[in-house]
């Protein structure tokens, strides 16, 4: 970080980028590589039975029972409005920690395949470019240049909240209530 002339913007960016550097779990959707902060990841599991929940958005695949804990699973392809594909042997569910309205919760995201854990230095990270007015890029943390490719670093809370997360939370909450009542 040897900088001779730095502006306040640069500084802010460096600071921001510094925040962005770290370990990411990378996965694929189609040809594209995405990254999610490793600290947000709770667990990686192979595909297992998913129970479909009625009256939920199409991107909500259903819920899984992970060692006694009910976790909703989001089909990230559908969330990202990408074409749906059949599940493969490579298909995996990444269980992540997220916060909604101050409440900490766990959710599964269904991806084509998980790749690796990457430690991305700051100089390989770029901030999210502007795509023009009206284009929400809040759910993207930044872009990582790895060799010739670009990996999109996701803000998983934004991803999950931005899209119908309330409903999930409501379900979750209901679930919790029910659990409490049951308890």
């Amino acid at each position, binding site marked *: 970080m040897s900088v001779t002339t730095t502006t306040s913007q640069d500084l802010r960016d460096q600071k921001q980028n510094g925040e962005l550097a770290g370990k990411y779990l990378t996965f694929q959707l189609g040809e594209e590589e995405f990254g999610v902060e490793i600290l947000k990841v709770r667990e990686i*599991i192979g595909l297992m039975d998913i129970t479909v929940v009625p009256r939920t958005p199409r991107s909500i695949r259903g819920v899984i029972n992970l060692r006694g804990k009910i976790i909703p699973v989001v089909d990230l392809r559908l969330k990202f409005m990408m074409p749906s594909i059949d599940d493969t042997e490579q298909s995996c569910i990444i269980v992540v920690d997220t916060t909604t309205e101050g409440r900490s919760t766990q959710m599964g995201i269904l991806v084509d395949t998980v790749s690796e854990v990457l430690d991305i230095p700051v100089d390989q990270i770029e901030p999210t470019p502007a795509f023009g007015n009206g284009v929400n890029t809040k759910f993207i943390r930044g872009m990582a240049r790895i060799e010739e490719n670009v990996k999109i670093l996701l803000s998983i809370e934004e991803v999950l909240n931005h899209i119908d997360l309330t409903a999930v939370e409501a379900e979750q909450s209901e679930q919790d209530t029910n659990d409490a009542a049951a308890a």
Partner: protein
Amino acid sequence: MTDTNTQRNETSTAKTDAKAKQQLIDYTGQVEAIRRSQAVIEFELDGTITFANENFLQTVGYRLDEIVGKHHRMFADPEYAASAEYQQFWDRLARGEFFSGEFRRLGKGGKEIWIQASYNPILDESNKPFKVVKYASDITEQKLASADSAGQINAIGKSQAVIEFTPDGTILNANDNFLGAVGYTLAEIQGQHHRIFCDPAYTKTPEYSQFWAKLAGGEYEAGEFKRFGKDGSEIWIQASYNPIMDMSGKVFKVVKYASDITAQKQAEAESRILSDMLKGAGAMFMACDKDLVITYCNPAVMDMLRQYEPAIKKLLPKFDSNKLIGTCIDDFHKNPAHQRKILADDSMLPISSELKLGPLTFGVRAAAIYDADGNYNGASVEWTDFNDREKYREQVSKVIAASEAGDLSVRGDLEVLNDVYRPMMEGINEIVEAVVKPITEASDVLERMAEADLTARMTGEYQGDFNNIKENLNRAGDALEQALLGVADSAGQVGSASSQISEGAQKLAEGASTQASSIEEISASLQEMQAMTGQNADNAGQANTLSGEALSSADKGNSAMERMEGAIDKIKSSSDQTAKIVKTIDEIAFQTNLLALNAAVEAARAGDAGKGFAVVAEEVRSLAKRSAEAAKTTAELIDDAVKNAEGGVTITQDVREILTDIVDGSRKVNDLIAEIASASKEQAEGIKQITEGVTAMDKVTQENSANSEESAAAASQLNEQAQSLNQMIGKFTLGQGEQQAAFTSNGTTKKPVTTPRKTSAKPQNVIPLDDDDLAQF
């Protein structure tokens, strides 16, 4: 009559005037006077007698009481009294009609009485008759007198044909004689006109009209008339037409008395015919009476005697042809007594003899002539002039004698003959001429034929046998000419035919030569064919071996393929197992990777403490990744191997099919080769036979050559003979001369015959064919 009229007038007027009683008395007196002078009888209207005066009673010889109350019919002929006519008579009287006339009545005892009487119906006041008064006078004596003259007339009528006419010619009556002569019945001619008996042409003449006019005028006509009977036959009558006049001198009828003279007329006609015949006849007749004085000479005998008069006068100086009639025929005879004796007796007649007067000869034929009573009344003499006949005989004899001697040039002299014999002599001359002409012509024709001119023919027009001679001779000439023409034609044909044969022989010889060379070529070809057949057999053998090898190789290939298939199947099953293992490894690698990642996540969470662990986790993940890649590569390799194995199976199957085809093909090739071998054998056999055939052909060709040579020689000889025959025929003159010219051109077409080539298909060129050569097949 006048009296009765008067009386009727009186009767009709009697009661018209009551005052005329005086007049009635006068009438009564008159009636009484009539009664005294006349015979009076009165009847009722039906004829019943009521009164008769003395005069009447005297007339009829009855007393009054004998007749009163009786009927009038007692006086009538019973036949008449029964007739309708009589009844009518009384009916008419009853109606008031008046009658008068002469009546024949019968008196007592049937005595015939003729009365002149009037029957007068008397009328009453209403003009109706109430009685009949008859006044009569006896006219019996008068009647008998007239009957006498009538009897005389009847006598004429019995002997003569009588016909009565009105003055204009209408027929009133005719008697049986007349009717018999003309053949009509009375009914047929009554009321007809006289012209029905006449020639219609004559009746139209004024002469005929005049004839009747004269008669009507009272002129009498008599003569012989020609009339015609009913059947149209001609009738001659000797007749008188007598006009009969009444008291006033007026002709009221014409009576004709006639006798039939037809037979007489016919005899007259016949005698006229005979007379004219004698006058016109060419035959010479004279007649003499019993004293032999000539009474008749016909013109022909006169002419004849006049012709010889000078000659006759030399012998009989008294002869004068103009004074023959009245001359005794003794004057013609030297010995008149002989003639007299013959002619005196008609039983000797008729008789013919010849009369010689010096050089003259006559034929004389005498026949008897009889008078009407059949008495011998003279003789007729028919003369014949024999003098011309003698001349004719001489001429005929002359011609016959010459003909018999073979001289047909002599003819009868016509100048010396008269008109009778000249045509006969002419006929004989013509006969001789007719005989001479065809014989002469026939002789000429035969002479020409003898000089070889066969065109000579008889051309004259002949009849009958001469025509037969002509036709037969001409036919003989035709036949001879046709025969020689036929020979000439045949000679020509033989000549041309021999030329053709000669040409044919030459062509045959050329043909034989060509054939020989052809046979040579055939021999050479056969040899080549033989060699080719051998080559064929060799090739077929090699092909057979090769196909056998191919067959066994294919079999081996087949079994190898089967083994290969088994191996491939094994590879496939091994690959499947391997694939399962690889998949398991892959799954393990995946799980390992997940574990490594989770380890990495946990390490990260652990912060610095987890750094070492993170490295290990990374190593594990990397191994898992390599393991997965290796498994993936292995799986790919195995997939490839399986695919290759499957491809191998497909290829194997294809190869097997191909091999099966090869095997089948090889078998077929084998069969075909066997057939080729057998065919080659047969071919060789065939070639052998052909060779034999060719040898035989060659022999025949040789014979052909020899034959054509002989044939040519014979044709040449034939041609020469035909030529000499033609020369012989050429000596004859024939109708169709072109025959010879045609032959002459043919005769020169003789050509030298080319000797056929003396070659033959050499026997050593013939390929010997043995079965040995085919053994390899």
